[in-house]
């Protein structure tokens, strides 16, 4: 099979949300014929196409989740060293007091496929958890999510602390209870309305990092 055909099949399998097919292809054909970086690029290409289809309302959240599972399944077969260290580290989590992580999981996958090294801090994330992740990092992004308005106070606490102590960290927020104005009031550098806009918003705020 030609390299280009292999890549196209991988991309399509991600776009179809077909986890079984991804694993089947990668195990049968192996990764070495095209190389790990190209496989990762194909998987990422599939997620990017899925993101655009999601933006245009062609696929729904559940279908996007299946695409993400297919992407993750394929990415898990690639060496950690190739998967990670690809770009600015992004630490993403759901703020303390909130456990709704569906949006965060989608954004994490989209940012990972966009070339960032994403660390998922999980749910109910406290200031201490964020501190343990970013201490010593000269440049990084902290992405905070909250669906519930009751988590806005802990979110503000984390943002204020980062602003006072970690000048190289940029903060992006998102979630159902937020909008641009609230993000600005909290002191965040950016606001992502959804997984669709997250990569572009991240690019915008990283341009302010020298």
């Amino acid at each position: 099979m030609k390299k280009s055909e292999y890549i196209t099949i991988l991309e399509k399998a991600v776009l179809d949300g077909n986890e079984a097919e991804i694993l089947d292809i990668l195990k049968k054909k192996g990764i070495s014929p095209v190389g790990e970086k190209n496989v990762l690029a194909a998987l990422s290409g599939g997620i990017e196409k899925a993101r655009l289809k999601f933006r245009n309302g062609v696929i729904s959240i559940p279908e996007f989740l299946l695409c993400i599972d297919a992407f993750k399944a394929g990415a898990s077969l690639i060496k950690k060293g190739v998967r990670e260290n690809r770009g600015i580290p992004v630490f993403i989590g759901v703020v303390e007091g909130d456990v709704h992580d569906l949006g965060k999981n989608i954004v994490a996958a989209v940012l990972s496929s966009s070339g960032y090294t994403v660390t998922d801090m999980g749910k109910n994330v406290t200031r201490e958890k964020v501190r343990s992740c970013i201490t010593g990092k000269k440049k990084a992004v902290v992405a905070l999510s909250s669906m519930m308005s009751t988590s806005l106070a802990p979110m503000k606490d984390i943002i204020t602390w980062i602003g006072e102590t970690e000048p190289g960290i940029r903060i992006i927020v998102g979630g159902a209870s937020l909008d641009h104005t609230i993000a600005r009031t909290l002191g965040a550098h950016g606001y992502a309305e959804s997984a669709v806009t997250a990569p572009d918003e991240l690019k915008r705020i990283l341009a302010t990092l020298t």
Partner: protein
Amino acid sequence: MNTGKIFNALRQGIIPPPNEIPKPLLKAVASAIHVRGKISNLTSVERTFSALFHREPDHVPVTPLLCSAARQINGISFPDLSLDGEKAADVFYSGWEFVGGDLIVLMLDLSVEAADFGQAMEYPDMSTARPDYSRPVIKNKDGYGKLKPIKLSEARRMQEFLKLCEIMVKRVGLRGLVGGFIFGPAGILSMLRGAENFFKDCMLYPEEVRRACETITGVLIEYAEAQCDAGIPAIAIDTLYASQSGLPKKVWEDIEGPFARDISNAIKAKGCMVGIHNCGHGPYADVQLKWTEPDVLSIAHLPDDCGNIVELKEKYGSDVTIIGYIPTQLLIHGTPLEVMDECRRQIDVMARGGGYILAPGCEYPPNIPLTNAFAMMEAAKRFG
């Protein structure tokens, strides 16, 4: 027309089941109220009733949907609100007395039913109750088939909710309309499985999910009937996943549509009114109306087939009374004047010809000051 039910309710000083009264009579009464509203102030019940039957009242009815935000008034904790029907009634009643409103919707949290189906719960001090997703009831696709119906009489949280209904109906009496609430079967399953896994299961194992919806619906029908028996005249069914925040339209119709219909029919059989609450993005108003034929549609965002508020009024304004849809974010960060401006914008389009009740898109944010709730009340009087 069940005159026994009507007189029994009036004798108790509570609102009778509205749909026990013949529709032509209700419409005639609504018209009379509309005329009375031109020359004098209406009561809350008259105002709401008039709007529900698509006649313009003296001013647009309003409900601030305070729900747990009203805890701030008497200092009752979140856990007590969730677990104690009497304390919950104190919260809702004090919210209504302090801030006002023509309609009170008894929305506690979305975990009431799931808790009784065995879901491990957390009851935080500063937030509403939520599932402990590290211990889901449904761990994989086989878990749907293992779900069994529960006895309503042994369902602790649902029983406390029914107590809340009874107390509120008696306390408010004929002074306001008290609405009940039920989370739809798909939503409950997502509490038992986790939303992400539930969504994927709906695509991969729809038959298993559908069977579990059927199991849950039997209990929900009993629960809805019990709310009606407690004197609740109208019940909101929350079908959150019938939206772009949830399932594809056709998938929702296959998985939850028929069961939402069954619950709706059970409520109507009791002579009560049906509302649909959906605070998701791009709610599928068309299919929700098709399956449940509700009297009321409560939304937080424009339906998926409406480009703007004018289209919303034109497409759905005559079929159903719309409740909403002041954005949560505006209530959080907006000044009272900004909130009133948005209320005015919506009232100007939606209130014409009745069929509109001003409200937040979803419950009032629990931990913010009540100032903007008062702003909404003022806006309804000033601009409505």
